[in-house]
């Protein structure tokens, strides 16, 4: 038992050790100085934050509706919305191309209007939203679904209109889970690779996010790829620490204080 667990633990940790130690600090710093680094980092941070913003903006009302809907099709919609999590990102890329590519079913009409999103920065954001939205949706539907129905009933009996109930009761009570969902969405958007490569391409400064830059750098110099990877690991690790702290604070604030 201990042997099996230990083996898995080692297997999971060793790659990170290699990522951190291989080549030493000098080669990592040299890697960071590569011309690919800063444009990719700017693009990754910018697009992933916009993606999270769009997902939260559209996902919150959608989740509120899904969580409260008694409509049977709403349950099917929830399942459909989770699909991007389980399909390979490459499939997502193809689907986006077929929909919004220059010859795609909607892309063709858009192209006639003089706008083609494929292979542009907009496509990067579209790919990120597509693959990362389910993480937020799941958290938000659960958060709203878990709300005490009695509270909403009482709120209405007190005379609260549905918007007041949403903004002053539902949203504040669901907020911790919404923030957790948004954080996971950001992590997924930041790491997006497959769908971006197929739908947005790999152009420095325009569509080349950090994961794509790593892919490109691998052909030039593995230490550059290593340096870029460490950058992503740093973001991800910071996010995990934030979530842990955040969850802990949540538990503390939920414990009743002594009167």
């Amino acid at each position, binding site marked *: 038992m201990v042997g099996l667990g230990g083996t898995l633990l080692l297997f999971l940790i060793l790659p990170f050790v290699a990522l951190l130690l291989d080549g030493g600090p000098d080669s990592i710093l040299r890697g960071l100085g590569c011309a690919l680094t800063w444009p990719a980092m700017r693009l990754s941070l910018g697009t992933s934050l916009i993606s999270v913003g769009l997902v939260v903006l559209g996902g919150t009302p959608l989740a509120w509706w899904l969580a409260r809907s008694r409509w049977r099709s709403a349950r099917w919609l929830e399942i459909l919305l989770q699909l991007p999590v389980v399909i390979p990102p490459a499939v997502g890329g193809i689907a986006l191309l077929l929909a919004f590519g220059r010859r795609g079913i909607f892309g063709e009409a858009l192209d006639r209007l003089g706008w083609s999103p494929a292979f542009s920065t907009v496509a990067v954001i579209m790919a990120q939203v597509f693959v990362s939205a389910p993480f937020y949706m799941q958290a938000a539907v659960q958060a709203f679904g878990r709300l005490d129905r009695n509270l909403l009933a*009482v709120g209405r009996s*007190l*005379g609260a209109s549905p918007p007041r109930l949403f903004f002053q009761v539902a949203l504040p009570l669901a907020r911790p889970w919404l923030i957790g969902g948004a954080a996971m969405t950001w992590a997924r958007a930041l790491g997006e690779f497959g769908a971006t490569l197929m739908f947005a391409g790999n152009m420095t400064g325009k569509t080349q996010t950090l994961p794509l830059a790593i892919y490109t750098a691998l052909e030039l110099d593995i230490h550059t790829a290593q340096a870029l990877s460490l950058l992503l690991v740093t973001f991800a690790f910071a996010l995990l620490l934030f979530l842990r702290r955040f969850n802990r604070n949540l538990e503390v604030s939920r414990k009743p204080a002594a009167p």
Partner: protein
Amino acid sequence: MSTAPPHLSVSVDAELGPFLLQATLEVGAEPLALVGPNGSGKTSLLLAILGLIKLERGRIVLGDEVLVDKDRGIERPTEERHLAYLPQDFGLFPHLTAVENVAFALACSALPTSRKERRAQAMTWLDRFGLGSLAKRKPPQLSGGERQRIALARALASSPKALLLDEPTASLDVEARVEVRAFLAESIRSLGLPTILVTHDIMDVEALAGRVAVLEKGRVVGCGLPGDVRKSPPTTFASKLFCSPEPVGLDD
């Protein structure tokens, strides 16, 4: 202002899954206790009056206001019915302090007031119920009895025209139960609003209600003075309920 005497008249049909809720109630100034076994539709009847479950047919009149008349296509939304609803766990918003909970109810009323005014008014409500010192506490930091009283203060701050209480003492410990019961009895009497209280507890019936309605599988099978229901209970549940030893110090 309405000048009609306080009266709530309810007649509703609703599909509840296992059976049909088909209930008719008349509530005047005397509080009505709604009793019946678990799953007989007591809470559902309250929710139907509130407008939170779908009605097949129904007519609900509060004072001189028609809240529901399915035949005429009238169905006022919950937030316009002016019904104070106290669920079993009191329904205080856990993220708001006691005074903010009361201010929430004031903010929902039609009168536009400033945040500061509402807070001051909310404080007045809390003081009236002897709760001023708890104003800044959040519900998780309050005892059951305190929460019950704050919930009632909040409900009354919304200037309701009727009171719906769902098992008001069920989630309290024995000591708090006695205290809350006395407090509720006095509040209900002084308010004089049509009041329906769902309960499992004969002590609640004795202390709070003027009349009793017995519910069984969604139908009102008996209604009358507590003494009459005790003498000729319409169901085995009612006879069991009234069979429990009579509370000391309460004459019937």
